[in-house]
């Protein structure tokens, strides 16, 4: 893996950090590069300190990296906070007419950002676009590609034109005035078109491809953009998106829609999921398919609303009273986000139960380039649906006890069959009961679904050899960082492999215990304070692992993992 360039854009909320970062990413992607970009921002709309990191490479990357080649500093704080991260020959682009006291910083290269914006584009709001141009100039990137991206981003017209002028001015200024030893130049390398998207985009696309027809949700970081995406596409794709009054309502609406026969989902984060836990069990006992996207962020309670964590694993696995089957999937890549969302809808209907897709702020809001999904591979498996003819059978029983635990599913109004179900324990016909025998048989029936469901769960993915000294284990959004750390450590001569879980429940059978036995030592690397996956592995295999934990709200970098492993010695 050859990491070509690392750009960081920093500034206050409201200064356009995100646009600059995204447009840079898009421009490089259009040139055939692979991108990974993440965002760091506060829970506020203006002010504070935000940054956006764009990593550019000529082969696939899936994590951020530390050393910054180009730091676009839209304010002074950015220089103060990040100058230490700038690489040897790196450059800090800043407005030398606004920030004047940075004399001692050799990497700093001043550009009159605001003045150029006013002079060339007529408005200082385009200061950030001038900075964008300056960055492009520094890396000597083909301006035509960026110009096209700017045009699309600003949707044509005067605004586009002015922004293009602003960017060009910044670019030109640097070309004419920069004479330092920066050497990370890039030019487009191919015409291959890859998608640039974030985790939430991929989940939304997965839901639409899977035929999701109903979404009810209540805004909450980091999943709000899923409901926004679905709302934007609702008309075109024949789906309904309801902004509910609260999360309780959201999940119950989705369950109602699922009962009525459409693929339905909701999306939330920890606090909202708390309020959905009762509905989760309602889906369990009524055997109603529903997909819940749970986007993790640092808890407890409101915690750090715009940051990342993987602290909800145990909660999601065990939420709600009593025992009932559920599935829990945890994508680790943008591809996973798409495919596991499709799978979630399939499992939900095949097994008639709630399926959780766990993501986190890092994965949800980071951008990356990936190949276009092969939509033709999306299979829709709706499970045991009764035919319209059978749906006229007056003896129909919604909760028929079967060997597989799965009862043929009719929809209300499909035919003359009545579809009866209940949050109380019920008989096969769906009516509430009190007797011990029916209760036990219904519990057994529902839990039997786990047998089939378990077979659907993919085993953990081993990267490297099973014969290894050190085994790194991860789940969810840390996948990219762990893989890259594995590569680095191997390159440095260590014997390291990694194991990655993306389908968490029913717990994948795979040979985890065997791998743990083989490895001399193993570490679960996860973004929480108590090692929740490590505990789960212990529960399921009886084996102990080491842990490398991080819970400051920031994502792991490959290098951090490498250092942590080295610190463990041996």
């Amino acid at each position, binding site marked *: 893996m050859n990491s070509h360039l690392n750009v960081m854009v920093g500034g206050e909320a409201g200064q356009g950090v995100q646009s600059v970062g995204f447009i840079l990413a898009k421009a490089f992607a259009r040139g055939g590069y692979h991108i990974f970009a993440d965002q760091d921002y506060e829970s506020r709309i203006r002010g504070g300190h935000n940054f956006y990191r764009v990593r550019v490479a000529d082969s696939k990357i899936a994590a951020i990296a530390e050393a910054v080649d180009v730091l676009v500093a839209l304010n002074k704080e950015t220089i103060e906070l990040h100058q230490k991260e700038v690489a040897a020959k790196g450059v800090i682009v800043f407005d030398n007419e606004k920030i004047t006291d940075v004399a001692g910083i050799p990497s700093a290269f001043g550009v009159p950002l605001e003045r150029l914006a006013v002079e060339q584009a007529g408005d200082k709001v385009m200061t950030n676009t001038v900075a964008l141009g300056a960055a492009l100039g520094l890396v000597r990137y083909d301006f035509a590609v960026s110009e096209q991206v700017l045009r699309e981003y600003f949707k044509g017209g005067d605004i586009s034109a002015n922004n293009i002028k602003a960017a060009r001015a910044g670019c030109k200024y640097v070309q004419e005035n920069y004479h330092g030893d920066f050497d990370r130049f890039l030019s487009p390398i191919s015409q291959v*078109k*890859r*998608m*640039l*998207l974030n985790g939430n*985009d991929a989940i939304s*696309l997965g839901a*639409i*491809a899977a*035929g999701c*027809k*109903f979404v*009810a949700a209540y805004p909450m970081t980091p999943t709000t953009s899923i409901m926004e995406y679905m709302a934007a*596409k*609702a008309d075109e*794709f*024949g*789906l*309904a998106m*309801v902004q*509910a*009054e609260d999360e*309780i*309502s*959201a*999940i*119950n*609406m989705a*369950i*109602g*829609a699922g*009962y*009525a*026969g*459409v*693929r*339905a989902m909701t999306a939330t984060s920890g606090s909202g999921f708390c309020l959905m836990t*009762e*509905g989760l069990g*309602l889906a369990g006992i*009524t055997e109603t398919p529903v997909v819940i996207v749970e986007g993790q962020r640092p808890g407890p309670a409101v915690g750090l609303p715009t940051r990342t964590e993987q602290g909800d694993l145990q909660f999601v696995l065990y939420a709600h009273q009593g025992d009932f089957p559920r599935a829990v999937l945890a994508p680790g890549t943008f591809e996973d986000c798409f495919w596991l969302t499709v799978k979630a809808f399939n499992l939900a209907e095949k097994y008639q139960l709630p399926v959780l897709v766990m993501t986190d702020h890092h994965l949800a809001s980071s951008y990356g380039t990936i190949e*276009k*999904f092969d*939509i*033709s591979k*999306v299979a*829709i498996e709706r499970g045991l649906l009764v035919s319209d003819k059978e749906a006229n059978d007056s003896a129909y029983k919604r909760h028929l006890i079967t060997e597989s635990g799965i009862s043929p599913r009719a*929809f*209300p*109004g499909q035919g*003359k069959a*009545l*579809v*009866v*179900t*209940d*949050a*109380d324990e019920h008989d096969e016909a769906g*009516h*509430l009961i009190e007797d011990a025998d029916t209760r036990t048989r219904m519990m057994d029936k529902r839990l039997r679904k786990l047998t089939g469901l378990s077979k659907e769960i993919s085993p953990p993915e081993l990267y490297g050899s099973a014969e290894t000294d050190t085994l790194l284990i991860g789940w969810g959004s840390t996948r990219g960082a762990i893989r890259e750390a594995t590569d680095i450590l191997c390159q440095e001569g260590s014997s390291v492999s990694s194991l990655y879980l993306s389908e968490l429940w029913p717990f994948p059978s795979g040979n985890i215990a065997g791998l743990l036995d083989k490895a001399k030592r193993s570490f679960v690397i996860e973004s929480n304070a108590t090692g929740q996956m490590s505990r789960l592995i212990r529960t399921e295999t009886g084996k102990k692992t080491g842990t490398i934990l991080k819970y400051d709200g920031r994502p792991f970098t490959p290098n951090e993992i490498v250092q942590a492993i080295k610190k463990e010695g041996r």
Partner: protein
Amino acid sequence: MATIADYAGIPIAWCPGCGNFGILNSVKRALVELGMEPHQILLVSGIGQAGKLPHYTKGNVFNSLHGRPLSPAIGAKIANPELKVIAISGDGDAYGEGGNHFLHTMRRNHDITYLVHDNQVYALTKGQASPTSDAGFVTKTTPYGAAPPVNPIALAIVSGATLVSRGYAGDIEHLAGLIKTSISHKGFSLLDILQPCVSFNHKNTYNWYRERVYKLENEAGYDPTNKALALAKAEEWGERIPTGVIYRQDRLTYDEQIPALKMGPLVKQKIDPGLAAKLLDELL
């Protein structure tokens, strides 16, 4: 054509003499008189004595959580607007645990009929005060008397319900009529039904209600489309208690404003993953 007999359900677990029987009979009668078949309707209920009603008649049934019937009702209605969706709650279910859904369902005007069995007490949990218990009502959880009640009729009027009525479980004829009106209404209709609970409410008894209820349709000049008049009637609770249609307004339902539904019920639309291809292109 379905008959009353076709609407028979499983054995009933209510107390003999309970007002719920009157409601059940009225519901059956209304459905029969409207010429509806059980499979055309969806009964969504909460938890409480009231919430058991769907099991005691016939229809598609989703007996949901305490306080939550409106939410699954909304989801099901949007998924399949061809279903006649009737939600059923107790007063605790509707106005206590479910108060927030009540407010917002009305404001969005989902096309749902809401029958609230208002016995002014939590019956299934054995007699605690409910949000509609009369002020001062003494129960084990309110030994010094309940706080003043919510006023569901007034709440409904100011929250945008498009049909607001009150019925009385002791008058099946009248109640069945109101249920028919409510079911026939396009948009959200609240029908709050005064329901004697012979086991736990010894204040608001059949006698108590009978002495007080009167029918608004007999009141000359009452115009349920006049909001101010309706709000005044909503305040009336004491010597006289109005029943009948208290308020009515016309506006678009939530479903009518969902573009996706113009193509027919969501549940009848084919799933075609291929359609999503163009979304991928947008990201290139």
